[in-house]
């Protein structure tokens, strides 16, 4: 792992190798350590270190980009030369703007050193806790514990210089019956590995597995649903690309108005729906700059049900007379995408369940894909625990179902939000999300999967 000093010196050294007046360098050093387990035993564990030096050079609007992981001087000089050769061949980019100069980046919460350094001695006891609990209950555990440590230094010849270091961790586990007839899941992402509670996760996943046994077939259709926080995050985070100002102005998002214009300032959602990104929230390790290398900042995308902001990159801001903003994710548009938060309330999950006369309690979703990029309609399936709610009580396990719904309609149909926490979906999406109750959630078919 490079140090801060080494990364910054490396960025400046590489910049010095370029003869171009417009040169931008990004240096990343990233460590990963993890342990996988399945069938109540460890199946793989690894430690890896990767470097990346990305060089972008521009002359007369023509840009070449080359990235390498070889930190040897000769290799870095060759990488710069390659980027310059590409720039000499590339046609000019008419959307390119002048490089940004020196910036004052916000101080993000400090990363947790213990998380950054964790290795097998810190991880394996968590695996043992889960496997022991599963074996005790005659169940079968699988899962992953991992931590990452990453530092980035950026610099350009216009005076820009930035540095950031972060660490993150997660533990997820799937507990199944020995005959494969039931499955339960629990997971916890945490910026502090010391806060991972493997005993609680083991209990949750084991309990869910035992409670979900012999699920009942129900009729597909529209249901009132209670989504646990991970399930909420699985769908809501996919709203991001809809806030692109450019795509919206071009008539290609759910926020485009028919005939032209956009829905900024309109109340589309209930007043208890507020969607923000907050890179200063210590719970969600983020980066202090946007994809345009401008300082990031908190943003309110939906404020009490009203569309509060659109995401402007520098180019589109310059074309429309707006100020550039952080992005919302979904299109690689910057820091906002790493720190999305849907506001919750003090209401417990039990109180949400108690408010439902007939509906379904959903643990989380799987294999979610966009069906229509404009309306943001998605499809995917429930997984690892779905339960029937009758008269405010969980009464029976039910078989998995496929859903066909957009985050936009889900938020419009939300009638209650519960307590929020940081969640990580199976396919990697991170956000702070609450449990919620939503009506008319389309579940058009049954799945036999366990």
């Amino acid at each position: 792992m490079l140090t801060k000093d080494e990364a910054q010196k490396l960025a400046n050294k590489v910049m010095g190798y370029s003869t171009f007046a417009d040169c931008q360098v990004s240096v990343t050093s990233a460590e990963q350590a993890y342990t996988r387990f399945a069938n109540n035993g460890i199946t793989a564990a690894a430690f890896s270190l990767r470097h990346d030096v990305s060089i972008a050079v521009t002359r007369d609007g023509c840009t070449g980009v080359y990235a390498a992981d070889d930190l040897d001087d000769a290799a870095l000089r060759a990488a710069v030369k390659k980027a310059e050769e590409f720039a000499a061949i590339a046609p000019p980019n008419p959307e390119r703007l002048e490089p940004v100069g020196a910036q004052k980046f916000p101080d993000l919460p400090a990363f947790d050193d213990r998380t950054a350094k964790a290795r097998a001695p810190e991880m394996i006891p968590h695996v043992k806790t889960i496997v022991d609990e599963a074996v005790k209950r005659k169940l079968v555990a699988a899962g992953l514990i991992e931590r990452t440590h990453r530092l980035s230094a950026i610099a350009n010849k216009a005076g820009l210089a930035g540095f950031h270091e972060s660490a993150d961790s997660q533990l997820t586990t799937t507990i199944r019956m020995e005959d494969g007839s039931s499955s339960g899941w629990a997971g916890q992402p945490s910026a502090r590995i010391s806060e991972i509670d493997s005993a609680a996760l083991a209990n949750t996943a084991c309990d869910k597995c035992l409670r979900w046994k012999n699920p009942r077939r129900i009729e597909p259709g529209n249901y009132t649903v209670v989504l646990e926080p991970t399930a909420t995050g699985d769908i809501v985070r996919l709203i991001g690309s809809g806030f692109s100002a450019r795509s919206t102005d071009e008539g290609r998002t759910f926020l485009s108005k028919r005939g032209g214009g956009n829905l900024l300032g309109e109340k589309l959602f209930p007043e208890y729906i507020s969607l923000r990104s907050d890179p200063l929230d210590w719970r969600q390790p983020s980066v202090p700059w946007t994809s345009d290398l401008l300082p990031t900042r908190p943003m309110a995308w939906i404020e009490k049900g009203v569309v509060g902001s659109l995401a402007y990159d520098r180019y589109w801001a310059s074309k429309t007379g707006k100020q550039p903003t952080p992005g919302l994710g979904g299109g690689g548009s910057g820091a906002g995408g790493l720190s999305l938060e849907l506001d919750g309330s003090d209401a417990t999950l039990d109180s949400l369940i108690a408010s439902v006369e007939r509906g379904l309690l959903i643990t989380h979703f799987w294999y979610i894909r966009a069906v229509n990029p404009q309306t943001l309609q998605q499809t995917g399936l429930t997984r690892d625990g779905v339960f029937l709610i009758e008269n405010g009580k969980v009464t029976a396990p039910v078989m998995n179902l496929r859903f066909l719904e957009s985050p936009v309609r889900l938020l419009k149909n939300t009638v209650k939000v519960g307590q929020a926490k940081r969640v990580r979906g199976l396919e990697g999406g991170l956000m702070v999300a609450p449990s919620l109750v939503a009506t008319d959630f389309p579940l058009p078919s049954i799945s036999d999967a366990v």
Partner: protein
Amino acid sequence: MAATAAAMADQLFAAPEGSKTPSSDLEKLGAAALAEAGKYKASYCDIRIVRLRNQRIGTRLSPERGTNRTLAVPTVAEDSSFGFGVRVIVNGAWGFASSPLVTKEEIARITGEAVVIAKANASIQSRPVRLVPVKAYRERWETPHETDPFDVPMAQKLDLLRSVAEEVKKNSRVFGSVATLSLRSEDKYFASTEGASIQQLILQIYGNLDATAVDVQKGISRSRSYTPTQASAGWEYVPEMNLAENAMRIREEVVEHLSAPPVKPGKKDLILMPNHLMLTIHESVAHPTELDRSLGYEANYAGTSYITLKTRGERIASEHCTFVGDRISPRALGTVGFDDDGVMTSEFTIVDKGIFRNFQTTREQAAILGDKESHGCSQADSWATVPFQRMPNVYLKPGSQDTTPEDLIAGIDDGILIDGRGSYSIDQQRYNFQFGGDAFWEIKGGKRGGMISSVAYQARTPDFWQACDGTAGPAYWRQFGTTGDAKGEPTQINSISHGCSPTRFRQVNVLVTD
């Protein structure tokens, strides 16, 4: 060996004319790991030294805001990565460590790290790792090619993409177009304590064309794509992609798509074209026949499978369906000389006339099954990642010589022909799936009609393949590739090919989407 072997990657992987054995410098580096593992009494060790290169070239044509001009935004980027990973078995458990610093000293240090990890892993073990035997190969293998795509001048690539993107944009109703080419080169050296010493060069080319049309008054945005066969090949393959010809086709079809009426949902017969069905095969046949899923090793993420050890010998599809797995077909993305266990690749039957016969396996999995040898399906996506079971190319064999797509269409009263990839989703045991497509045509009274839109079909995998009642002959068989196959934790990405002829399915549940 120089202090920084990384700076010498070109020399390390260079192939002297006619050479059939690995570079001696690579063999010396590999030996450093194997010798170090011997000191720790590891029962097995392998090392992969890998240099990856990716080149991404593109042209996006978009209207400039407030003018009538079209702006052409280019992309010219390349990245490279060089490093090694060492895998050991100690006390019956795997250990793995990797580093981007390719020197003998670092290889020895990292081998020691892998041993420490293996010893720690052995503390919680469900069963000790055993491997089936493998012949010790000392070979060099390359993707057959005439011209290394990385040697082709960048200007030539940019000119090609600019011209086809402009071809798409010639219809004024096309809002925007994007043309891209991605090139991948993987130099890989593998050595093991069982005597393997294998050097390979894998070259891959991916191309794509996208067109978008927007009706602002109606609030509709639609697209049409052309994705040629993604291939393991040299640059000589690029003209066969027929980018210019297909640019003209999709610019008209995207406009037609914009006003195409939505489908009327219900049970319908489907004709699925090879560039669509390849993904259905990928998700509903190739993934469920991965043995690690069936054994529970992927339970926490990718999932398990509806196919179990007990399914061998049972019917899972109609008699029209014979699927083979291979890693040897020309130009297929999964084709290599040897897998990451050092096993020479081959072809094997997965489903024979609807009856499930064989799982995909690695050396470790073959030992679990009691098989004598592996099917050669071990792969890692980089030097920094752990090899595990990945799918081979999986093909649906064509139907009889004289069956044409028109014959299949003629037998449909109410159906849909689906072309290209759309959205796709399948459950964690590969039962319930939903697929969209890139373009759809109505079939009425045995004839193909006009374009329709907003189509998706949902089915249960065994029911769907049992509903297959015909596939066109060998003349219509095509192979396509997919480049983003995700599996494992942390997730690894794989590129793989699937092939088939246009195929008919009866009475599938069709939905209307947004």
